[in-house]
Structure formats: C-alpha cells, structure tokens
C-alpha cells in the first residue's frame, strides 16, 4: 500500500467532512445544542432539584457527562451514516471507489469526520453544561480517550448502517429503534444501582452503559462499572467494527455492482 497516497487521501476526506459539517451547521450543530439545553433545563434544573443527590452528586452534575456522551455518540453516528449514504445516493461514492485510495482509508476518513463532529458537538454541549453546573475533570486522560473511543465505535456503526442502507428510511431505523433506546437505558439519567438486580444484569449487556460510565468516571470520579472492563469492551468494538467494515468494502457490498 502506498502510504503517502493514502495519507493525502485521508486528509482530503477529513477536510471534506469538516467542510460538510460547517456548511450545513444549521443541521449539524444547532439541533443538538437546542436539545441538550432543553435536557439541562428540564431534567437537570426543574426535575433534578426534586431528585436530590445521585451517587453523591447533584443530579445536574450527574447527568452532564451522560448528556455530553449522548450528544457525541449520536452525532458521530449521524455524521457518518448521512455522509456515506449521501455519497452512495448521489453516486459520488464512485469518486472514492475508482481511486487508488484503500478501503481502510475510506473508512478511517469518514470515521475521523464523524469523531470530529462528535467532538465539536460534545465541546459545545460541555460549554452549555458549564452554564448550568460546575464540572471538574478528575481524570483527563480517561475522559479524553473514552470520548474518542466511544465516538469511533459509533462512527464505525454509522458506516455499517450506511453500507447496508438502500433508501433514506434505512438510515433512520437504527438510530430510532436501537441507538436511542440503548442510550436512554445506558445510564445517562440514572445509576443502574437504582434498578432491580435483574435489570442491572440486563443493563450490563448495553455497551453504551460502559462508555457513559467510563466517561462519567473521567469527569466525576464515579462509575457503576469497572473502567478496565469498559476499555476492553470499547476496544473490542472498535477492532470488530473496523474489520467488519473493511470486509464489507473489500467485497464491494453497498458500493459496487
């Protein structure tokens, strides 16, 4: 593989993705800012005052890391699925398919674009959160690495969705019926210690729980699960999903006749 060619190809894809996010900022940046502001006002400020402490933290403080992570993963996913499916729909995916750029570079370029959008929105939601509550980052390395890994997982998932999608409906089914329920049940708004034992065990099958808790541990220093286990799961997901995407593109699924 020609490293220089693929590096330039990767940079081109990332630049293109960033410009796309900025060009349609009303669709990519503004909606999560409004949604998260409403979450902070309604759940954090109005309802949160009546809830009291959660794992020793004010409710607003407790949900802030979860809401930041939620916005990061939904935007990482949404960016890749809409960008790559859009390229398929508009046939300009062919620009990449005919080029000598490797399939791994095509995946990494789109995933990097998704991660960057996730971080942009996550940063903005953090600023919004800071206007409602104080956040002291207890473990910066864990915080930063987990947000990058979690957004990578969901960007890769978005790529899988885009590869298989044949119509616009197909890119909204997974976010609506899988991603949103898993996110809401992934400990964004509550500690799983509040659940009955059976539902605690069921919750442990939700990968988003590990990401949200590891991220919360990075910021607040509290978690429902083992951080080492969270890293193991997230790294396995990254490796597995990347391999899956590569196999799909190498076989030409979704991009070649």
């Amino acid at each position, binding site marked *: 593989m020609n490293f220089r060619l693929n590096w330039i190809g990767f940079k*081109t894809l990332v*630049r293109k993705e960033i410009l796309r996010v900025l060009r349609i900022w009303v669709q990519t940046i503004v909606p999560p800012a409004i949604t998260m502001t409403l979450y902070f006002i309604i759940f954090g400020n109005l309802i949160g005052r009546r809830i009291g402490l959660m794992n020793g933290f004010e409710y607003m403080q407790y949900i802030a890391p979860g809401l930041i992570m939620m916005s990061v993963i939904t935007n990482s996913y949404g960016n890749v699925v809409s960008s790559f499916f859009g390229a398929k729909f*508009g*046939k300009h995916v*062919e*620009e990449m*398919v*005919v080029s*000598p750029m490797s399939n791994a570079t095509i995946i990494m370029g789109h995933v990097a674009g998704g991660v960057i959008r996730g971080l942009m929105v996550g940063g903005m939601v953090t600023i919004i959160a800071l206007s409602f509550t104080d956040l002291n980052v207890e473990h910066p390395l864990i915080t930063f690495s987990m947000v990058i890994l979690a957004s990578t997982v969901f960007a890769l998932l978005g790529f899988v969705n885009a590869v298989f999608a044949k119509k616009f409906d197909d890119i909204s089914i997974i976010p609506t019926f899988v991603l949103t329920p898993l996110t809401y049940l992934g400990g964004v708004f509550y500690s799983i210690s509040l659940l009955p034992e059976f539902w605690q065990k069921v919750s442990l099958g939700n990968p988003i729980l590990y990401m949200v808790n590891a991220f919360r541990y990075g910021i607040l220093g509290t978690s429902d699960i083992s951080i080492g286990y969270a890293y193991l799961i997230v790294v396995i997901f990254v490796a597995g999903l990347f391999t899956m995407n590569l196999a799909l593109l190498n076989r030409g699924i979704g991009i070649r*006749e």
Partner: protein
Amino acid sequence: MLALSIKNLTKTYSNGVQALKGIDFNVESGDFYALLGPNGAGKTTAIGIVSSLVNKSSGSVKIFGHDIDTDLEAAKSCIGLVPQELNMNLFDTVLNIVVNQAGYYGIERRVALQRAENYLGELRLWDRRDDSARTLSGGMKRRLMIARALIHEPKLLILDEPTAGVDIEIRRSMWEYLRKINKAGTTIILTTHYLEEAESLCRHVAIIDEGRIIEDARMSTVLRKLQREVFVLSLRDPLDQAPSLPGFETNLIEECELEVAVNAGDDLNSLFSALADKGISVISLRNKANRLEELFMGLVEGKQAPTGGKELRTS
C-alpha cells in the same frame, strides 16, 4: 505497450442477467478507441469492471500491465473515468470536486490547485470554480466530469457517453479537447451513441452486442466493409424525375436534391461522368447517413441499414 488488455471477461449479475459472455480486446497505448453497441450490450458493464465499479465474474483485466486482481492500486492510478451518469456532489463547489478527486489519488492540495486552474481553464469552467455544481448547465457538468477525470493526469481516459445531451457547439469543442489530449499521449476509450463522433475521433473500433464483441478492428478497416454508401447531391437545376444513371441507384428527394447509392468498388468519377452526360450540374455532395452508423446497424441487426423511405431506382 497495451493500455488495456481484457481476456475472457464475463459478468453475470445477481439477478441472473449475463451482461458479458467472455469478451477479449486490447487497446494499444496512445490509441483513440471506440467501444460501440446498442443499449444493454454490455459497454457500461465492461467499463465498470475496468474502473472497479463492478465486480467481474471471471476473466482478466490488465491496465498498462497491472492486473486488477493483484495490483489494483497501480491499475486504478492509470485510469480517469468520465461515467455516463452524473456522479458528483452537486452541493459541492466546482473547485472542491476537482481538488478532492486529486486528493484521492494522492496529489497534494497545492499541486491539485495548480492543475485545477489548468484543466478548469481549458474546459472553460475556471470562472465558475466557486459555484456549486448544481448551478451548472448540463454541458458544464459534463466538462466538469472530464476535468475531474484528468486531474490526476491518467494514462488511460475512459469516457462513457461523454457528450450525451450536450449541444453541438459544446460537443465539438469537447471533441477538439479530446483530440488534443490524445495527441499529447493519453489513451482514450470512448463509448457513444453518436456514431459520427466515433468515426470522427477514433482510430480503432470494437462493437459489442449481447455481451459479445462482434467487431474489433481499425476504423478504416471496418469502414471498408461497407457494401455501399448513399450520397445526397445538391443540383444546380431542378429535375422532374430521377435520372437513369448506369450502375447507380438514384432517387429524387426534391427537385434539386438527388440521392445516389454507390457500391463498394465503384468510383465517384464515373458517377460524375454519368451526371455530366445527362447535363446535370452538382453544387455539393454529402453522405446521407454516417458511414459507421450504416455498418453498425448492419452488424447489430445482421443487415445493412435502410437507405431511406423510398426505393432507389436502379438502371
């Protein structure tokens, strides 16, 4: 050196349609090659396989010696593709479309911007570089796809019906440009439904029908196979009826327009002598149909193309 070598290439789609039934053809480096055939003959499938947009079922494809099975990256680097359908992000700017494509081929942005100025300038799109592609006319979009295909300076340019839906002025300026880059060394493969275009531009022609190559030869060799040509003569003085010319079929279309069929092997001097004997003065002469079109119809339909609505009178 062969720019393209295709051996026993087959393609069967998942719905069972056998688009290619084992085609072989070679394109010499520097050639201007026409790949012709009716709709659904397999041209776009063949081009799709060469440019990696379609998976082949079997057979081999080599591009400048690089096998697409074992050396795909090098093979792809040699090709520039202008597809039949628009395949660009219409919301992106003209400049971004071209420069991004260069990036996919490993060309630094600084170099890509210089080349973009050259190619967009040559194709009269530089002034529109900051406009989004959706604001361009149909002909401009076609030229943009040519600029995009050339930005990495490929050795082999493949054009799949590049002038479809383009007005005659732009078509001719595109022909001129294609001749220029071919003369500069770029091998060109062209599919087109405008057979006049193929005859005017290409030195070699292959005709594909129902997934098989039914003709593959130099353009001049192919055209020599024509059994006859029909000429339309503009006459100085009107006639009442078609004149009887020994050895030629004639048909009077209008009082000053005469159709004459000339068989292969006959020369035009004897036609003009016969006309002069009858006191008929000719102002101008043109082919009734494109010669390649007649041959194409003959090969595809198994017969010579019809020569007109009326029977020609034979003397």
